[in-house]
C-alpha cells in the first residue's frame, strides 16, 4: 500500500532530515512511527502526501508519487494534522466535514449523507452543527478525525493524535483508531498509545530507521528505546524493573 525506496530529504539542501529511507506497509496494517522530537516523523508524512518532495521513490496504493498522480494520491490518503486548530478552518463541524467530499465532486446530499454516516459511527452526531471555535480540544480532535473519515480514504496518517488530550479523550481516540479498518500510519512518542493501536512499529532516529518490527518486541526493548531518547511505555515499565 505504501512504499518508500531510498527516500532522502533535507529542508535546507545540506543536512538531511530523512536519509535513504526504505520501508513498505501493506494494506490494512497499522504502523506506529516513533522517535524523539525532530527524528523526522512529520517530515515523512509530508513526503507521503506530496507536500514535500525529495529524492527517491514513493508509491501509494500502486501509484508512483509524481505530479500527475498527486491528486489521486491525496484522495487516497487522509491526514489528521497534529494541531486540529489548523485542520478545522470552516465555521462549523458540518461545513468542515463536507469540504473534502464537495471538492471531490460529491453533491451536497451525498456529502451530507457521508457526514451523517461518519458522525453516527463515531457517536458524535451532536457535534454536527456546533461551531469549531466553541468545542473542546477533545471534541475538536474527534471532529478532525471525522473530517478525514468523511473523505473515505484508504490510508490514514495521524501526526501525534494523542497530544494535548486528557486521559478520557485520549482513550476515546485510541478506541476510535482501533475501529478503523484502513491502513494506518501513526506518528507519536506516546508509546502507550502506539502499543494499544499498532501491530508494527518503525523506530526512527535522525531520519533513519533504527528498528522495524512488531510493536511487542520493540516497545519492550528498554535498551533500544533509551538509546533513542525514549522510555518504555508506562504500562510495561513495572514488569521490567
Amino acid at each position, binding site marked *: 500500500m505504501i512504499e518508500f525506496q531510498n527516500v532522502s530529504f533535507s529542508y535546507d539542501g545540506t543536512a538531511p532530515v530523512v536519509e535513504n529511507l526504505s520501508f513498505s506497509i501493506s494494506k490494512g496494517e497499522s504502523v506506529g512511527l516513533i522517535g524523539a522530537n525532530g527524528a523526522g516523523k512529520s517530515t515523512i508524512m*509530508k513526503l507521503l*502526501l506530496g*507536500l514535500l518532495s525529495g529524492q527517491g521513490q514513493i508509491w501509494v496504493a500502486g501509484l508512483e508519487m509524481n505530479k500527475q498522480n498527486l*491528486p489521486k494520491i*491525496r*484522495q487516497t*490518503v487522509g*491526514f489528521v*494534522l497534529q*494541531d486540529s*486548530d*489548523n*485542520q478545522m*478552518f*470552516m*465555521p*462549523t463541524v458540518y*461545513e468542515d466535514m*463536507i*469540504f*473534502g467530499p*464537495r*471538492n*471531490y*465532486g460529491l453533491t*451536497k446530499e451525498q456529502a451530507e449523507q457521508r457526514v451523517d454516516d461518519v458522525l453516527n459511527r463515531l457517536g458524535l452526531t451532536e457535534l454536527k452543527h456546533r*461551531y469549531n*471555535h466553541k468545542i473542546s480540544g477533545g471534541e475538536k480532535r474527534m471532529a478532525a478525525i471525522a*473530517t478525514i473519515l468523511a*473523505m473515505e480514504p484508504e490510508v490514514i496518517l495521524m501526526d501525534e493524535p494523542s497530544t494535548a488530550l486528557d486521559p478520557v479523550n485520549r482513550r476515546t481516540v485510541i478506541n476510535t483508531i482501533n475501529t478503523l479498518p484502513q491502513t494506518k500510519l501513526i506518528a507519536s512518542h506516546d508509546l502507550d498509545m502506539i502499543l494499544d493501536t499498532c501491530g508494527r512499529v518503525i523506530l526512527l532516529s535522525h531520519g533513519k530507521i533504527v528498528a522495524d518490527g512488531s510493536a511487542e518486541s520493540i516497545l519492550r526493548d528498554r535498551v533500544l528505546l533509551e538509546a533513542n531518547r525514549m522510555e518504555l511505555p508506562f504500562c510495561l515499565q513495572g514488569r521490567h524493573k
Partner: protein
Amino acid sequence: MDKLSHAQSELREMDALAAECSPIHALHPLCKLLVTVFYIAVTVSFPKYNFSGLVMMVLYPVIAFQVSGIPVGLCFYKLRLVLPLVCAVGLANPFLDHTPLLQLGTITVTGGVVSMVTLMLKGVFSLMASFLLIATTSIDAICAALRKLHVPGILTTLLLLTYRYIGVMLEEVTVMTEAYSLRAPGQKGIHISAWGSFLGQLLMRSMDRAEELYSSMVLRGFNGNFFYADISPFCLNDLLYTAVCAAAFLCARIFDIPGLLGSFFVG
C-alpha cells in the same frame, strides 16, 4: 491579553453571523456583492456639497440591517477601530475651503464644513454596506461569487487565505503576549526592546500555521475553486433585489429626492 482574544472571538463571530438565516442571508452572494459594490460606487460619486442627497443613501444600510436581523449598533461596535480613521479623512476641509454656502442665523456654513461631513458620511456608509455584506455572506461564498465573475482563482484564494490568516495571526499574538506577560509581570504591553523579535516570531509562527492550514485545504482537494460553498442558482428574488436596489440608488443619485419631497409638502 483580554483585548486580543476578544478580537479573535469577534472574527469568529462574524462567521457565525454569516451563517444565520434571514431574507438577506438567503440572497445569492453574487447579487449581494454587486449591490454592495454598486452602492459604494454611487455613494462615493455624490458631489461634495450634495449633503441632502447623500443622506438618502443611509436608507439602504438601515433597511438591510433591519431585514437581516443584525443590529446596527453591532456594526458600529465592530468597526469602532476603523471609523475614526474614516472620519478623520475630511478634517482638514473646513480650513481649506471657506466658500460660504448657507447662512443659519449668524453662523455661516462654509463649503469646507459641508464637504467634510459628506466625506465622513461617504466613508461611514461604505463601511456599513461592506459590513453588511460580510455579516450576511460567508467569506467562502463571497470568493465563490468572485470566481463566478471570472476573478482569477489565485486572487480569490489569496483573499480567502488573508481572511483566515488574520484569524491565525490573532491567535498567535494572543499566545505570545500571554507568554510574554507571564515573564514580565506588572508590565503594560510589550517593551519596545522586544518588539523586533516579537514581530519576527509572530510572522514566522503565523506563517507556519497558515501554511499548515493551507495544506489542510489542499489535502482535502481544494484547487482554487469553491465547489463547497453552497451557492444556489441565481433566482428571481436575487434578480429583483439587485434591480430594485440598483434603481433606488440611481434615483437617489440623479433626482434630488429631499428637494422634491420638500416642494411636494411645502407646495
